[in-house]
């Protein structure tokens, strides 16, 4: 004799993206440049001790409101996570964006990377991973240009200088 019986429609596999979401590359490219952080396609080289960071934008590509949040891990050149950041979960309407950004001071020479994850009500929706910059000693090029300009000016002055009359 069956005492209790129940079913749950628990899992949607490859179904409609009611709970869909993804990082929006164009928004991230635009805002990272606008914020003066970096161009995603050509991460900067900065002086040791400077800040590097990234801004990520997640879009609710689903058809309904859903609670979303972003996590960002910043990694040093050895791959160690030096900072973990998570946005507060927020209800996002379809087509709206969720912003998450994080900065860190680069105290090790080499390539710094970041890893972002976008979560929604369906769990992990999208990931982003990339280089955010290179920390190093920024060497100043020898100012050959100014040497050249200075030489021309000096030569001109010598030529134009009044000559002493011989007695």
């Amino acid at each position, binding site marked *: *004799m069956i*005492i209790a019986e129940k*079913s749950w*429609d*628990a*899992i*949607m*596999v490859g*179904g409609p*993206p009611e709970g869909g979401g993804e990082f929006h590359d164009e928004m991230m490219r635009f805002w990272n440049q606008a914020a003066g952080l970096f161009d995603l396609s050509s991460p900067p080289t900065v002086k040791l001790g400077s800040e590097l960071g990234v801004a990520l934008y997640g879009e609710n590509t689903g058809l309904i409101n859903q609670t979303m949040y972003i996590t960002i891990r910043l990694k040093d050149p050895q791959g160690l996570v030096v900072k973990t950041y998570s946005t507060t979960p927020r209800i996002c309407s379809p087509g709206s964006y969720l912003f998450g950004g994080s900065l860190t001071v680069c105290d090790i020479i080499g390539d710094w990377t970041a890893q972002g994850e976008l979560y929604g009500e369906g769990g992990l929706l999208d990931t982003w991973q990339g280089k955010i910059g290179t920390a190093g000693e920024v060497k100043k090029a020898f100012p050959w240009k100014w040497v050249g300009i200075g030489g021309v000016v000096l030569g001109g002055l010598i030529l134009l200088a009044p000559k002493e009359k011989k007695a």
Partner: protein
Amino acid sequence: MRGKASNSGMIAGEGAVISLALDEQTWSAIEAISAANGHLEFWRLIEKDSSGNILNIWQTEAFFPVNIPLGHMVQAEVDIVNDSSYDLAGTLTVEFLDPDGSSRGKRSFTYSAILLGTQRGVTTSYTTLDKGGTWAIHAKFEV
């Protein structure tokens, strides 16, 4: 307790019959217990990627249906809660029903005594999601 047989007599009068009960007794001989009673509760759903790394654990059905990519593996656990006024014995079966309605990852366990007011669970085996569509968790408890 031993009882006495009922003894009654009849007195016949002018066209009337009077029946007198001389002795009467009741025995509380049988207690009919209430029917077995219990309900099923979703306990958790675990998602693993194709390499076996755990990606998500849902412990509420509030997010159902959750979106999981094709090829990932899942395991569900459902509990039977004993709502009876006595210990319950029976078999709990939990399975997935794929989009075609076929049983997947089915597992059962027979409990000899679930104490009143307590609950016991059964998990499905890990099952690879190899069909697109809605997958259901189905559970039943039989005595």
